[in-house]
């Protein structure tokens, strides 16, 4: 490495200095931080009780038509891996008569080229990538989502 290369590196890292300084200042002021801990990092806080998963089997309103519906029941210990898919033991096309559960949507049989397969497409196999259970808990962050219907009916 020659001298000019070293000088170049030094100069470049000098350019970074303001960024480092600002970050350090910001970190020094805990009020400014977006944190969910709400207490000093050195303090052991009492963990909150874990809220229970809603298990009422009642469908919830979707916030927009393409929203993957949320799961209205608990799924404790339901296996979804390479070997087995417990969700499909009720929601599979051939198994809904016994379970009386809704069949997975037809979109789940489509591959990425839009062709329909005989079975659930591999890209839709891992249910929990899109579908989640819900708990009765206070949201951690505010949410100002507005339903499209409320926007449409809003007075000018």
């Amino acid at each position, binding site marked *: 490495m020659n001298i000019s290369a070293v000088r170049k590196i030094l100069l470049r890292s000098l350019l970074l200095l303001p960024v480092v300084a600002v970050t350090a200042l910001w970190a020094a002021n805990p009020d400014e931080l977006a944190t969910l801990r709400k207490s000093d990092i050195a303090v052991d806080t009492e963990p909150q009780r874990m809220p229970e998963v809603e298990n009422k089997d009642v469908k919830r309103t979707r916030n927009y038509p393409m929203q993957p519906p949320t799961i209205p*029941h608990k799924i404790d*210990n339901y296996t979804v891996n*390479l*070997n*087995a898919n*417990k969700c499909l*033991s009720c929601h599979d096309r051939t*198994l809904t008569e016994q379970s009386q559960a809704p069949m997975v949507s037809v979109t789940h049989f489509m591959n990425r080229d839009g062709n329909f397969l005989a079975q*659930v497409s*591999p890209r839709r196999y891992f249910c929990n990538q899109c579908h989640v259970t819900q708990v009765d808990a206070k949201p951690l962050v505010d949410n100002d989502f507005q339903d499209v219907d409320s926007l449409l009916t809003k007075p000018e």
Partner: protein
Amino acid sequence: MIKWVKKTWKIAARPSVHYSLGFLTLGGFIAGVIFWGGFNTALEATNSEAFCTGCHEMEDNVFQELKTTIHYTNRSGVRATCPDCHVPHEWTNKIARKMQASKEVWGTIFGTINTREKFLEKRLELAQHEWSRLKANNSLECRNCHDLDYMDFTVQSARAEQAHSTFLASGEKTCIDCHKGIAHHLPDMEGVEGWSASAQQN
């Protein structure tokens, strides 16, 4: 040799001169109790989780998986151990299962599942043995703890109530038909009744 047997038999067959009938009956009874007790104690010793997990095949695979399920830890603190689910409580069934268990000793000596890979390869077969056993005895082990007669459907979740009040109550299905994999991880379920295609590429 034959002579000796004959002589011994004669002594045994001869009515006792020295001991009263009462003593002999009582003695026989006590000896019986001791033998029976010893037999049962031996049976009990092999009927504990510590015994089962003494073999690494059981300890490293199925036991570790059991620990994450409701049958190991739950809100009521009542748990199921290996023999609760795998060794029938009824006496005749108990012996039958123990005879089958000699297969496991064989398996240990010959290392049929002595590595994780071998175990996973054989898991479907082993699981199928358990499923058909539970199917054949109408899930006897489950029912030793979970008695349908005392299930209060009104406090069960809606899906449980729906399934139990129909297919279970009518006897059309038994616990293991709907509750596979409640205690351990599952093998590839492709083709098993009540399960859809798995994601394994064969």
